[in-house]
């Protein structure tokens, strides 16, 4: 088993709080992803074993939801909203600015693994578009100048 005893204990606690163990799957995936950065095949197998559900089921759920990652991620994940309001107000320019600064294309990660750039759907902040999220932090009313300052705050 790849998971630490501490993590296994926490997984069991989450499972016990549900009417059946499977109900804990999403919280468990979040918990383990936080610890390891992403969810490898062997870790997903461990989770399936602990929760007593088929491995294929765990793989299916993990890959259905876009916020679970099955490969290594950058330290800071940049998500740029490209939905209607943000695109009306210049998300295209925001993406170009980020591409120029980071020297990567959407879907890629910088060589030093510090940043990855993702294009996402509505982030629920259309009144302050264009917006992007870095990890869990929302950055609103973006401009080229602002982006440079924001990136400097993430090490």
């Amino acid at each position, binding site marked *: 088993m790849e998971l630490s005893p501490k993590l296994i204990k926490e997984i069991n606690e989450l499972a016990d709080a549900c009417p059946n163990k499977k109900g804990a799957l999403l919280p468990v995936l979040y918990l383990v992803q936080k610890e390891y950065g992403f969810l490898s095949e062997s870790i997903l197998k461990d989770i399936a074993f602990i929760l007593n559900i088929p491995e294929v089921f765990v793989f299916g759920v993990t890959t259905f939801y876009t916020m679970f990652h099955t490969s290594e991620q950058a330290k800071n994940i940049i998500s740029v909203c490209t939905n209607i309001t943000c*695109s009306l107000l210049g998300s295209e320019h925001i993406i170009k600015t980020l591409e120029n600064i980071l020297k990567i294309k959407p879907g890629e990660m910088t060589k030093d693994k510090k940043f990855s750039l993702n294009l996402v759907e*509505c982030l629920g902040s*259309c009144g302050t578009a264009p917006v992007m999220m870095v990890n869990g932090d929302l950055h609103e009313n973006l401009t080229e100048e602002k982006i440079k300052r924001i990136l400097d705050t993430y090490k």
Partner: protein
Amino acid sequence: MDYPSITLRNIKEPDSHKINTYLKSGGYKGLTRVLDDMVPEEVIGSIKRSGLRGRGGASFPTGLKWEFARRDRNFPKYIVCNADEGEPGTFKDRILIEKDPFAIIEGMTIAGFSVGAEKGYIYIRGEYVKGAEILRKAIKEAKEKNFLGKNIQGKDFNFDLDVYMGAGSYICGEETALIESLEGNVGYSRIKPPFPINVGLWDKPTVLNNVETFSLVAPIIVNGDEWFSNIGARDFPGTMIYSLSGHVNKPGLYELPTGINLKTIIYEFGGGIKDGKKLKAVFPGGLSSGCLNENEIDIPMDHKALAKVGSMLGSGAIIVINDETCMVEIARRGMKFFRHESCGKCVPCREGTFWISKIMLRIVNGEGKKEDLDLIKDLGQGMKTAAFCGLGLAAANPVLSIIKNFPKDFESHINDKKCAYNNK
């Protein structure tokens, strides 16, 4: 004009997300009155008389929903708050969660008392990391002051809440897909009936309401159902939060009476079109609603009126678009979203969003054919008729409404092989 502010009344207060601030502004008066002076049937009666309808898009009468759940003798029952706000253009729930979490918690607690549930979940979208953190802290504070937990305020009533995070799936905002997700499954919607009110979470009776709906509950109890039913439109009373975004001077949240005129919201509250440009199109109820043209916007924000022009009220997300925008690009972008979010369970939605996306891309790239528009209409009509859930039923609305309202934009792409606006 002076309109009552109910759900947004506290958001400008510093520390509005803390329980002491909430208590100072009259918070928990509703629950206290319910526990001291009312039986569950009276609470449900009051919510029914208030005329409150769900604010998540479907507008089902809230009191009726609670009554169905109350009557069901299958236990345990659950209260679930749909905080999976994902409709493009909507951002009201995020603000309510971050600025006034106790209003939601109090509303859910009153719902629990009314229908006989002891457990509730707030299903919040995975991107709202800050909101989830605020809710967890709020639940902890509420427990410390005995507004949640065992024997609430010394009465024979237990109610507990958990926050459950989604993980980036738009379809989980559909109530049955949300329940599937809460049970640890892929977010595939379920067939209805049975409705969640009888067969919901873990197959138990489940009351599912939107964030804004729960936020309205305590004010109705405190101020009276008659007060609420006299605000706004007769058959859909109260206030509604309109999320205004796009090419307007003052985007933001506006809590206004239901049934208010769309043009009034855009020009009087939103300050008109940005940079002195002209209005071209408006999505009145989020991307799913289908757009209106400039001649159609003098219209009340009302289900019947909007349905008449082929649109819908949805969650009240108003996206304003100026006349320098190519609507073909908007249609392409909109369909790309639905293609990404289609869960793949049913054929009309999975194939429809996939093929319309491909055709739209071809048109935008100047490779469109004349017959493409008929093909899109055909596919879109198939989706509107045969899709399994609300996502697929609505996914063709943007593209179909754009073909109807702005045929010239398509003509230049298809005939002249280029965009007349060149602002792709």
